[in-house]
């Protein structure tokens, strides 16, 4: 297993999404040593699961390719995947991070030839597609996964499938005896970039995410557009595979709500505007998107994009907090109930599919990172209260879009470098 040499002049970056990758790369390209720790088997994070970015409608994997090329060429960064930070102790310039490494059961001999995948028969839910489909238990997490190395799911270890995978590998890349381990990393500064997770949609009871098949979340909707996603790129709804031509987007699903997330998650308005273009892209004149909103928060230059979507007659805007959803049992259509506040009309609108513009909550409650790291009421890292050298970056520190996450990560990277430079000056 990878041995990470780290010193008090090393920066630890926790999280390998776009913020963590950015923080690590920017620091390394300033000449600093970095250990990048990612809990999943591949770096890339949540943006790698998006079909397109707003407002340019370009593909996140394009930027990821650039970042991966930087990463592959960068000798100052060590990437540890399937690795999670368990605890941090110490002080600025002298931290010890306890990192738990899970077994991958595949070593770096792996050529990603794919023979093990062919050999095994067990299937597991595919986390890259939010569990919307299944994949083999010997898998490459996705097309652009880095490291480009297979993973054996622990569930097949000890079963005949594991032996089949072993037998299929010609390169001694499978090591069924691989054990997880716990390592201590001595580092000088830490960038905490563990990102966000979608708020648990099932908690928003009136919307019936847990009861109605045709109510899905915005992150799941992204996966439907991927030609290699769970539907092969078809915009079809879960209940009956019918094309979802008439789609409702419900804004502030979980956000701006005292019962759920108090904050505004910032990205959801733009995400729904963007996703309405997916519907139009797929179905042309037959597409119908309806966006139920409180305020459309197309901030600063995103306004252009909002105007462009507003000009599309296939997209309708209703100012309303949807009260609840019922289901028409015969058709499987979700029916949205509420009051249009512009003119106070009641509505009961059926749609093929409902997409909840789901709110953003931090993946890790900042209050639990280590004593001295302060969390705000939503669990985001309060970057202003953190006096120790643990710097929040990206969506671990605030509800941010990609562009602002990268800015935040670049700033956090500099703050970490300042600590490292202080350490090296003190030791010089």
């Amino acid at each position, binding site marked *: 297993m990878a041995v990470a040499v780290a010193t008090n002049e090393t920066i630890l970056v926790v999280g390998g999404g776009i913020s963590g990758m950015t923080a690590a790369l920017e620091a390394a390209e300033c000449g600093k040593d970095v250990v990048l720790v990612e809990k999943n088997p591949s770096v890339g994070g949540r943006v790698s699961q998006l079909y397109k970015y707003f407002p340019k409608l370009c*593909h996140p994997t394009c930027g990821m390719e650039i970042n991966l090329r930087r990463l592959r060429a960068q000798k100052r960064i060590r990437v540890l995947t399937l690795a999670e930070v368990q605890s941090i102790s110490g002080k600025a310039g002298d931290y010890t991070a306890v990192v738990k490494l899970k077994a991958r059961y595949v070593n770096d001999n792996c050529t990603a030839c794919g023979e093990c995948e062919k050999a095994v028969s067990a299937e597991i839910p595919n986390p890259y597609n939010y569990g919307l489909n299944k994949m083999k238990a010997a898998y490459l997490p996705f097309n652009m996964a880095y490291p480009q190395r297979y993973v054996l799911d622990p569930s097949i270890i000890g079963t005949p499938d594991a032996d089949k995978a072993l037998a299929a590998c010609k390169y001694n890349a499978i090591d069924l005896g691989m054990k997880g381990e716990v390592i201590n990393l001595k580092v000088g500064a830490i960038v905490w970039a563990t990102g966000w997770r979608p708020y648990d949609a099932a908690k928003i009871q009136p919307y019936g995410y847990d009861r109605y098949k045709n109510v899905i979340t915005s992150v799941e909707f992204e996966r439907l557009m991927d030609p290699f996603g769970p539907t092969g790129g078809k915009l079809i709804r879960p209940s009956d595979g019918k094309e979802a031509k008439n789609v409702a987007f419900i804004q502030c699903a979980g956000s701006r709500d005292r019962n759920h997330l108090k904050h505004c998650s910032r990205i959801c308005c733009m995400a729904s505007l963007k996703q309405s273009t997916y519907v139009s892209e797929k179905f042309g004149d037959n597409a119908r998107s309806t966006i139920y909103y409180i305020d459309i928060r197309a901030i*600063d230059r995103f306004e252009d994009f909002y105007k462009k979507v507003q000009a599309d007659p296939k997209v309708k805007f209703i100012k309303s907090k949807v009260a609840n959803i019922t289901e028409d049992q015969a058709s499987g259509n979700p029916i949205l109930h509420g009051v249009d506040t512009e003119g106070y009309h009641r509505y009961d609108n059926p749609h093929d599919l409902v997409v909840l513009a789901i709110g953003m909550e931090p993946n890790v409650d900042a209050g639990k990172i280590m004593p001295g790291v302060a969390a705000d009421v939503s669990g985001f890292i309060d970057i202003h209260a953190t006096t120790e050298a643990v710097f929040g970056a990206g969506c671990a520190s605030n509800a941010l879009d990609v562009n602002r996450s990268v800015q935040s990560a670049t700033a956090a990277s500099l703050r970490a470098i300042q600590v490292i430079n202080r350490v090296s000056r003190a030791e010089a």
Partner: protein
Amino acid sequence: MADMKIGAYICKGCGIGERLNTTQLVNIATKEGKAAIAREHEFLCNAGGVDMIKQDIEKEGVNHIVIAACSRRAKVETFNFENVALNRTNLREGVIWVTPADDDKKEIVQEMAADYVRMGCAEVKKMEVPQANPAHGNNRRILVVGGGISGMTAAIEAANTGYDVLLVEKTGSLGGMAAKLAKRVPFREPYSDPVDTGIAALIEKIEGEKHIKLFLNSTISKTSGAPGQFSVDISTESGTTATENVGAIVMASGFTPYDANKLPHLGFGKSKDVVDQAGLELLAKGANGGAIKRPSDGKEVKSVVFVQCAGQRSDKEGELSYCSGHCCNTSIKQAMYFKNANPDIDTNIIYTDLRTPGNGEDFYRSAQKKGVNFTKGVVSEVEAGNGALEVKFNDKILNEDAVAKADLVVLATGMVANSGVDIDAVKQDEPGQWAQSKVSVLNMVYRQGKDLPLLKNGFNDSHFICFPYETRRTGIYSCGPVRRPMDMAQAIEDATGAALKVIQAVENAALGRAAHPRSGDLSFPSVRMEGCTQCKRCTVECPFGAIDEDEKRYPVINESRCRRCGTCMGACPVRVISFENYSVDTVGYQVKAVDIPDQFSEKPRILVLACENDAYPALDMAAMNRIQYSAFVRVIPVRCLGSVNTIWISDALSSGYDGVMLMGCQKGENYQCHFVKGSELAHARMSKIDDTLKGMSLEVERVQTHEVAITDIQRAPALINQMAETIQKIGLSPLKF
């Protein structure tokens, strides 16, 4: 460098050995590719294989290496050797994974592999190991232009990292717009009330910081040079000029509030009691926590209406089309100035969409709790009535026209970037005729103009979502509201990020290496001047303004500004520009290395020049998913479609290729090219190739240019197959020998 010695290594792993006759490939590498050493290996990327190569480097003096195995995107860290020229010949993703294993296809698949080995040897023969730019500078001082919150933050952060900073401010004092605020919007919990701006403390810190040299009442009258070696003239109003050398520059020239005089229908200029947000800050500062008085008669304000989006988010001529992002929170803050002084004052914010992202939502709730009134509506007019102003608006909730009376009206106008000269809109100075501009912020002595190129609406933000600091002028980074409308909290983050980027720029420059997106690349372009015809295409088309002109119109390449895309190389009609490891020859010789079967073979040859960042990975991923495409194609990755020199195309056609395809990224308004115009330039250049084709008596369909995204994993192979069908239809090229 020692004499060239080529080592070619053919991997047999991942099925290559089963599908291909690797012994034949070894022979080709030796006989045709002139490899001094050519070896097969069962599993080249394992320790044994890598060690074998290392031994040959150390003991046999191999210095040019062909790894014929998997894609250049795989096993990069494994095949990473110091000081050798390296080619990755793609037999796995490029051949066996995209072709059928059928026996009757064996011959054409083997031919494909053989050609790739020939091409690999041909490329590596023309490559040299980049030696870094010898003309690099190593000045590590940072210049920050603008002494507002963004500039001060960039300066203090750079100084805190251990770098010397020159901070230049146009006015007589630091602080900028932020210093004019009574208080700021809270940026951390509790998000309940306006908080101190912190500006005084920051100014004090800057004035006491020995790493920061301060220039007040000063502007930049001239900027020349390149990262690591900029020379800047800092001039004072009184006419004195100091010339300083710096390594990199932060442009933090901030914003100017939109001129509210352009909004007479909202009463500005007609009544003194209609102010903009900056005007209200002035009143609040004057009140110093006490009652705010209205300008016209000094009467205490008892009711105030805030008009959001005044002259912004507008389609009207002369108004701003964008949202300035901060104004909702700012009006909430200003409403609290009143409510906190006296809860009985009526405060009404008339808005269309209230935009308080993140924890701004808490601040919004706090205002509601304090009794600030929020009305969804659109204001049409503000009129001076009897002793009070009348705000006429359409109430969007009640769907009716209404009037609100107020002692004071605050217009939430937008931010206009202080971005200097729009270089695309003005004529550039002739070489030798450069003159300072009063409008310009940086007064750059660059062939392509005096300031940073603008994006939209006068801001010079990066065009790229993943890379907000992807500047088009290497070593110069803008931050704060000149880049994009933003509030103070964001400006501070942005400026801190920009401080990292300038530090990175000086460190890169000192090592003679490229900045993002080809981070660390040591190659740089050189011009064979004796062949240059002074056509100026390179100086005009360089996306990064790296190439100036001397007085005789010869190009002057500023290597440290270069981002190594090769656009200049693609532009040059006489082919005198090249990089050590990427040149007209490294690609041209690959094109020529392909074995062209005769006209009666029924084996067409199609050349694909693919952008290495999008099209090439898309084809790789097609291979990973075993999506097949014609075995008649030969794919060459290029740094950017902009680097494609048309000689490659005419050479290919005249040597008997049947078709040529260019695959680059999306062009146009939402272009995805990280070298800005590469794809667009290629499309433009190719649109002129029809005449060449006709001159050669070839059909125009033989050359095609496509926009291919990295996600076109199914489409890219389909495009190739369509081309193969087209060739079948129109027949093989008559130009085969």
